[in-house]
């Protein structure tokens, strides 16, 4: 049976291509996941850092001193990054250190905060109030983002599992049971239509679930793998159940 299953793949160049592409793309899909994890870690730490900076300014410290103290205190990714940037900034201005920190974080939230801080310093605006307000704003924003993630993650996994695994298995079961290959049913064009359908349905499922979580582009890296999985499940299912 194992040789028989392997023989199916030999006769399906599209499926072989999808498997190869799927493996290659899934390797490409790992860096966006790691990068997102790092970025969200930084962004979730940001409100606490802004609040601490605001408190320190209220206690009479300068912004640079407050940031140095926060870099010492915070042992997360944000603190590490801040410490690294401040250490490197001895030969340059504090303003360029802020810009450097924003660039290194690769987070639009941090970039916006740093931009606003630079502007506030330039304009001599009340920094303590601004930092406290920003801390509140970004805390609410991150709460919303985290809530969206936790509430929709289960649904997005459900869509992928059902469309890419459940559906091809169910149809393979029906076809294998009612029209078994062993009984001489001719299903070449039927199978190729359904194989293409499952591939396309998996692509739709991945796109929808990625969009639900607000990261369609990075989710699409995994599309070829899921397409290959769903197409393979159908082919193998029809072969095994109908054999």
């Amino acid at each position, binding site marked *: 049976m194992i040789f028989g299953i392997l023989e199916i793949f030999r006769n399906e160049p599209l499926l072989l291509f999808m498997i190869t592409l799927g493996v290659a793309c899934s390797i490409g899909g790992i860096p966006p996941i790691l990068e997102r994890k790092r970025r969200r870690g930084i962004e979730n730490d940001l409100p606490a850092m802004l609040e601490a900076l605001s408190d320190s300014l209220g206690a009479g410290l300068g912004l640079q001193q407050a940031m140095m103290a926060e870099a010492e205190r915070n042992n997360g990714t944000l603190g590490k990054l801040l410490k690294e940037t401040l250490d490197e900034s001895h030969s340059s201005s504090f303003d360029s250190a802020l810009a450097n920190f924003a660039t290194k974080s690769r987070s639009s939230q941090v970039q916006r905060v740093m931009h606003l801080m630079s502007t506030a310093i330039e304009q001599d605006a009340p920094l303590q109030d601004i930092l406290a307000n920003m801390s509140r704003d970004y805390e609410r924003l991150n709460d919303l983002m985290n809530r969206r993630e936790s509430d929709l993650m289960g649904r997005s996994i459900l869509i992928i599992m059902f469309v890419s695994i459940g559906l091809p298995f169910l149809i393979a079961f029906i076809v294998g049971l*009612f029209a078994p290959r062993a009984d001489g049913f001719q299903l070449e064009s039927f199978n190729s239509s359904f194989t293409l359908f499952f591939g*396309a349905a998996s692509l739709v499922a991945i796109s929808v679930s990625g*969009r639900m979580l*607000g990261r369609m582009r990075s989710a699409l890296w995994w599309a070829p793998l899921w397409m290959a999985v769903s197409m393979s499940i159908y082919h193998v299912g029809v072969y095994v159940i109908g054999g």
Partner: protein
Amino acid sequence: MRSLDESREVLYVIRTLDVLMGSGVGLEAAIHSISQGGYGIISKDFSNLMENINKGKPLEKELRSLLKKAETDGYKRVLNTMLNNVTQNTDIIETLRKQGERMEESRTESVKEYIEELGGVPETLLSIGMIGPIILSILGIAPQLMEDAEALFGPMDQGMIMSIVNVGLFLTLLGMAMIGLKAHTKDPGL
């Protein structure tokens, strides 16, 4: 896409305008600061506006034309506040603060709505995605399953049946994509 970009950036633009103008910067200089970048589509709009102002066009006229271009309510309100400040010298900072608070509340509401509305998407997607292929798979194998029943149902052409199945599968896929489109169109723009 424009409306999504606008709704994503407008709150940050309000906060920046609040900081800048609260510390004594004029409206034109604040617009110039935002036009330098960092606020997506709004930075581009403000950059075009600054270019036209530098060519000698009045700020009021430029704000009016931008108001026509804006798609979301929030962005339109901000532009309207700016316009009122230019024409009637209104207190822009206080208005912007109120708008920021209101916008934040509405963003929270829209995220909750988004999560609730997408609650039904998996079920609908799976209903269409399952029922369609099940019916079509049975239809596709029917000519071979019922070869002996030709006297009862008449001859069934496998080629014609497969064409119907293919069209059906395509429509199922289209239906799934249309349902999934809700996830994009209702996005609150976080």
